[in-house]
């Protein structure tokens, strides 16, 4: 990934690596309790119980799915009915706008658009694909759990480091955004 120097003030972060998810979660809770910005947890598997410790997250994906499904239903029926009327081909003694076949088309398009809208919602709400460089440690894809918190001053950095050490971090690093 290409490196970009921001030029202006670079955010400094403290990262603590843990061996199991519970201590990582407890450390994140302590950091939040100590008044830091919401820490980020990086892990190879989803950690359960994050919302209780760090506060609830809303999911906008459901709105995307709903809107997508409705759009799909409308466009499915419109596609079938309007094209039947554009160039009329009477078939089989059925009406030009027949409901059972067109409702099947509507159903399929509802699901198609619902699926595509869910993907779009996922990409937008999780901010994918990542264009700018972000903090990442490869160990979190294998077997380590990381807690990352942003600090705006030096003594905040030290406080964060001490909290992480107290919570049982295997390794604590300082990361400046802009480095890899």
């Amino acid at each position: 990934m290409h490196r970009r120097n921001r030029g202006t003030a670079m955010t400094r972060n403290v990262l603590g690596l843990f061996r199991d998810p519970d201590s990582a979660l407890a450390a994140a809770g302590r950091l939040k309790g100590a008044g830091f910005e919401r820490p980020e947890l990086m892990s190879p598997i989803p950690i359960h119980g994050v919302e209780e410790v760090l506060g609830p997250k809303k999911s906008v994906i459901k709105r995307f799915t709903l809107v997508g499904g409705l759009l799909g239903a409308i466009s499915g029926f419109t596609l079938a009915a309007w094209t039947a009327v554009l160039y009329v081909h009477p078939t089989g003694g059925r009406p030009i706008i027949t409901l059972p076949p067109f409702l099947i088309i509507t159903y399929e398009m509802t699901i198609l658009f619902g699926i595509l809208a869910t993907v779009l919602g996922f990409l937008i709400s999780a901010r994918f694909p990542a264009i700018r460089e972000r903090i990442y440690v490869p160990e979190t894809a294998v077997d380590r759990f990381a807690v990352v918190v942003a600090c705006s001053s030096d003594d905040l950095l030290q406080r964060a480091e001490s909290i992480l050490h107290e919570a049982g971090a295997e390794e604590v690093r300082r990361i400046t955004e802009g480095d890899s």
Partner: protein
Amino acid sequence: MQTEVRQARFADVNDDVVRSLVVTGRNYYIALGIAGFVTLTCFFFPWFYQLYYGIGAAGMNSPTVWGTYLASFIFWIGLSHSGTLLSCVLHLTNSEWRKAMYRSAEAMTFFSLFVAITMVMVHIGRPWFIHWAAPYPNQMGLWPNFRSPLMFDVMAIMTYLTGSGIFIYMGAIPDFAAVRDRTTGWRHHLYVLLSLGWRGTDKEWHRLGWAYTFLAVLIIPLAVSVHSIVSWDFALSIVPGLHQTIFAPYFVVGAIYSGTAGIVTVMFVLRKYMNFEHYITKLHFDNLGKLLLLLSLLWTYINMLELFTGWFSGTSTEYEQLKYKLTGFYAPLYWEMILFCAVAPLLLISRKFRTSFVPMLILSIAINIGMYTERFLIVATTLSRQYLPGSWRVYVPSLVEISILVGSLALFVTLFLLFVKIFPSISIYEIKETMDAPKKQGDRHDT
């Protein structure tokens, strides 16, 4: 102590999967070579011969205008059903044993759909105009006929192809991230692109979890509707033997049945040749065997229903169809189908049978042979005996058709072999979740 054990095993999962992707033995190249060669000679060359000379190269005649191509199409769509559908259902029921096998099962779905679409192109008389079945604005002002069951097919299969492709990709994003870190060269660049910059933050996991669940909820009714729609290609006719309301459930049950048998075959192959013995265990085969037994009993029931309604109708065309199926020209095939799909799976009642690998493999292949015969019989017996006895005629597949059938299987194998070397064929993060087994979900603070 427990955390150290977990740590060693987590890293092992990454190692195993990366090794399965990167380290290629000679056996793999031989297998790929054979599959590719068979695809070329048994699928593409006969197909080009048929394109040049006409559908006459196949064995179809009037009135059996549909033959093995359509039976294969339905077979491959059926095989595609179990992967994604089963994966979605088991995801929503939070089952553990799904986690080792669902990635390959979903890949099986995707490639079966692909092969099924190729069979459509082989089947129709003028495939160079197949784009007319797609709704696009054109200078003729013509649109496809949406009242046609074949058009429902087009929409449903396109949706299912998109849906299952998206589903398998979404589930694999964290795995792409994991293998991106340990690979080099073209693989690294490919995985960098495919992983979209996944870092594994809690926010990303949360969003992925929701999106994945929504997709599973959407795909289950979709999968049920796809094979119902395929069955309506037949059931919406007024021809005896095809015009039955049982067709939609019959086909869906048959699809899940043959798809599950396909999963058993694929699991056996993966376990043996990709060194995944730790991840695909007797438990998986046991559970798959139970599911197969259930589906076999359902399938037998539906067949008995068909027999009953045919017999009950007295001396009608349905009764004639029934007599022809059981005692006519194709009777040996019918009884072979009953043997493989209704009688042999009763062996699954024994737990010992379910947990032995090679017998399960043989049974799963037998079930799929029986299910292919079922699709073939639906096409051949019903078209051979319709209303007017003056047009009764027998259909025998030609060499070209048999060769294309074999070639389609080889095409599927080739695609799947390519898949295991590019996609992580076992889900890394879900296996790791099973390794956390001592803690139940939501019960996080107890050690």
